[in-house]
Each structure stands twice: as C-alpha cells, then as structure tokens.
C-alpha cells in the first residue's frame, strides 16, 4: 500500500458499515425517482421505447456502480487519535488526509439526519479557525460520536492556545 496515507499509529479506526447502507439508500432514491419519472414521461408522451430502455439501463448501471462505490468509500474512511492530533483519511480515487492538532479544535459538531438516526450513526465535524480544515467523520456509531465529541472538546480546552 501507499505509505502516504498510512495511519500515524498501527491502524485506522474504521467507520460503521451501516454508512454503506445509508449511502446506498440515498443514492437509490436519487437515481430511481428521476429515472422512473423520466421513463413515465417518455412512455406517455413520446412512446419512444428505445429511450425508455436507455434511461432504465443507465439508471441500473448507476445503481450497480453506486452499490460498489458505497462499499469502497466506506472502507476508505478512517480516523486515528494520536497523542497530539486527530488524523482523518478518506477517498478512493481522490484521497485526502487531514491532521488536526487537538489544541486547534474550536468546536465539534455531531449531526445525524433521519436516515442516519434510523441506522444509529452520526457525523462528527471538527472546526478550527480555518474553514479549509473541513475535518469530517461520517458513519460513527451515535454513542461513540458523542463520546468522541466530548473527548475532543475536552482536549481542545486543555491544549488550546488561542489563535
């Protein structure tokens, strides 16, 4: 493997596999609904059956691709708590690794939409004085997310050194 995105300690903490399911459901809704509407419109107004078949095929291909993408994307997320910094990595093709020193964390958000709540996961976002930090960990089990937030907030307070 590429040493560029290796964890600072021995291994990455992975995010919940339920993130795959959530991503798949969201993607399925966003692909299926427009595709069904488009197919119905074409079938009723134009009766171009080849176009209906084409749209359906593209939508199906999108669903199949999305199914595998969700798995790879979820597997690519990882975070690690070092002695001094929180490291987060993600991305399959376009990879990103961000390291945020605890002393720089200004506040930590935990957010969970209805779908995420149904699957018991949440998103943890770290904010520093820089908006380009964009340190986000999705798919953390809800209890862990709250604990992580409390721990990071506490560390941010004790190591904080102003701006």
């Amino acid at each position: 493997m590429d040493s560029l995105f290796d964890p600072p300690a021995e291994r990455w903490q992975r995010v919940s596999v339920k993130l795959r399911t959530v991503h798949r459901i969201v993607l399925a809704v966003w692909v299926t609904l427009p595709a069904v509407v488009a197919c119905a419109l074409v079938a009723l107004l134009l009766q171009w059956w080849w176009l209906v078949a084409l749209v359906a095929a593209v939508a199906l291909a999108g669903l199949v691709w999305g199914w595998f993408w969700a798995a790879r994307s979820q597997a690519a997320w990882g975070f690690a708590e070092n002695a001094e910094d929180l490291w987060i990595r993600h991305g399959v093709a376009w990879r990103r690794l961000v390291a945020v020193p605890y002393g720089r964390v200004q506040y930590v958000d935990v957010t969970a939409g209805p779908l995420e709540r149904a699957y018991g996961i949440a998103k943890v976002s770290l904010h520093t004085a820089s908006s380009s930090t964009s340190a986000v960990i999705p798919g953390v089990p809800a209890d862990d997310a709250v604990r992580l937030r409390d721990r990071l907030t506490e560390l941010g307070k004790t190591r904080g050194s102003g701006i």
Partner: protein
Amino acid sequence: MQGQRTHPASAFVRVWIWIAAGVVAFGRDVVEGGGDRSLLSILWIGLALVGAAALLGVVFGYLSWSFTRYFIDGREIRLESGVLTRKSRRAPYERIQSVDIAEPFAARIFRLCELRIELAGGDDSRLSLQYLRHADADRLRHLLLQRAYESGSHAVAAPAAATGEPGAPVPSPHLDLSPPILVVRPVRLVVATVVSTEFLAPAAFMLVLVVVGMVFPGVVIVGVLPFLFWIGQVIMSRVIAQWDFTLRRGATGLHVTRGLLSRVSQTIPYDRVQAVVVHQAALWRPLRLQRADVTVAGASRETDSASSSTDTLVPVARPDEIRMVLGELFADVDPAVVPRARAPRRSWLFAPVGWRFRSAGCDAHAFVADRGWVMHRTDVVPHAKTQSVAITQGPWQRRRGLANLAVHTPDGPVEAQALSLASSDVRGLAEAQLAHARAAREVRGEA
C-alpha cells in the same frame, strides 16, 4: 437628552449622495423625455431636480445629525441614532479590537474624519462615529484605547501615554511622528500597477476591442464599458487606495496610513497576524518588485473588491524591504533561507511550465510554499499559527507518485499549498510540520 454630538458639519457630508441621485434622475429624464423639448427647459428641469435633491439631503442630514448622540461611560461607548426608528449601538470596552481613523473623501472636504471602532465577534462588529474633527477623533481614539486596555481587551496593548507622566500632552497616534519604516512612493506604485497582470489583462482586451471596432464600427462602445470599469477598479484598489502608503511601528502593531481620496489609517496587530503571502508577477521579476498580503485573525473581510486593499501589507516594494517588514511581524522568519523540496520533473503533466516554480519546506520557524509562474506566490506560515495539515492526491497524481500538501490558516489571502510534490517528500513534510507546530504551541503556552 445627554451625551455628545458629532460635528455639526456632518449634516452636509452626505449631501453629495443626494446630489448624485438628483443627477441620475435628471439623466434618466433627459434620455426618456425625447428630443422635442427645448434646451432651456431641460436645463431648468435639471436645476430643479438637483436643487431639490440637495435640499432634501441637507434636511435629512440635519435631522439625522440632530438625532445622533454618543455616550461614554465607565463600561462602554454607546451610539444612539435614527430619526423615526431609534437605534442604539453599544461597544463595551473589553470587546474593542481596534480604533481607527478614516477620512472618506467627502469628509475630507469639510476637514472631518470618521472614528471606526472594531469589536470582537458577531456580524455587527463595527461602530463608527461620523464625523468628528481630527483633534476630537484623536483624543477619543486615545481615550478608548486606554479604556479598552484597562478593562482587559486582549487586542489592545498598553498605550504609550499610559506610561508617561500624568498631565503630559497625549501623543496623538493619528499624527504619529515616529519615523516610518517603509514609504511607497507614488511613482513606484503607478509604474508597478501599469506593468501588473491585473492592469494589462483588461487593457489588452480593450485594445483588441478598439482594433475590432475600427473594422466594424458601432459594436465597440458597449464592449469597452465593462473593461473600463475593470481598469477603473484596479486603479482604485491598487493606486488610489494605496497612495502614499506609509508603514510605522506602533505599540500594538504595524500602523498603516494610505489613500489619496480618503486617507485610511489602520493597525495590523502583531499578535493577530496569522500568515503572509508574497506575490511576484512575471513582469515584476525584472523590476525586482513584490507585493505582500496578510491574513489577520478576525479581520472583517469584505466580500467586494475593497478587501484586496485592506489585506495589503505592502502594495509594492523591493524584496529586501518585504523581508524587513516580515521580520517586523515574525521575528526569525526568513523565507529565503528555508530549505525547500522542489516539485519533481515528472510533475510537468500537471503544470507544464509552473512545475519549475513549485516548492515547499519548513525550518524551525515557519512553513513556506512557493507556486505560480505568471503570478508567483510565496505563502509563509509561522509554525505557531498552523491550524491543520492536509495531504490530497488524485488518481493521476498517484500514478506519477505525486501529492499535494496544504497547511491551513484562518480565512484570508494566504493559502499555503504545495502542489504536486513527490509523495515521498509530502508525508515527511506533513509530519515535520505537525511536530514543529506542536513545539511552537508549547513554547507559547509556557510563555
């Protein structure tokens, strides 16, 4: 009603806005009225419109002046204004970040100035007194800075007057006589702007349009206007706003005085400076000229083009002068001596010419990243100001063994990014950067 009033002539300062509105209304009337009216009647209408507007302006100006009061008490300065809906702005002393004196053009005509009080936090973070006499503004500025210091505002250091014997004349910070450390001569400013990309790009477009216009007359006028506007904006922000740029060393920060139409005096506080970027356009290289912008924590960043003039640290100067100013802000930081890792030859695919100009590195004091060919920039981030560090890599970069490194600082003109460096260098640089930043924070924490 108790409290103090602003200067009575304030009522007239804003009349020009009304006159301008009257002129615009008159212009529209002329355009829409058609050509069947005599010149005399048009002139009368114009005079009536502009006169009425000016009269309205004076009336409103007088009303709003007479309903404006400011109060200074033990804890805060408060500004109450508004004719129909009363508005009250409070500035508690401990939230004061800076007190600056500005001289908008219209106010200069009346020999008045505006006192701007910047507050920490919130969107509504400025209170300005319009308008005061210079002597009053200077006295008030000094008083406010003194009170802010006493009530423990972190941004304000002990004013010089506080250490002097009581009763001594208060040295006016506005008429600061400490010798300037840098003065940008207008000639250099004009020459540098004329050969800058920002000026030449719209000028070239305009030249093309004029040449086209000679072949196909008629189409040019409309096309030229936006470019004229563009050039005007460049001249405003780069020449007019930076005219007679003077940098002085103050107790709390570097003191800037600049501007032709409206003199602006502002302070760049030492302890809130986050990072600096030094720009050098390709055409400035043979002239050995550079420009420097600065990111200041919590600075009110305006979204319009005016921000480019408030972020300016040095509008144009020789490299040794820039280095001197950098030394004023960050002791020990000298980008010239920082060892850099250069972008490898195989990264030419992502920047056919620019790869030669890309490099990044750090020493014990700062992280430095270079990039850009036509507009070369050197971003300098002192370790103590590092917010976070990120590595990114796209699929094509991975094939060539390249990656990007970014060192994040609070939002501002500085974006320290090393693009398409060798992957083997990037991880090492990132870890070194985190270690340096940690060490710098610990030093600050003990101090």
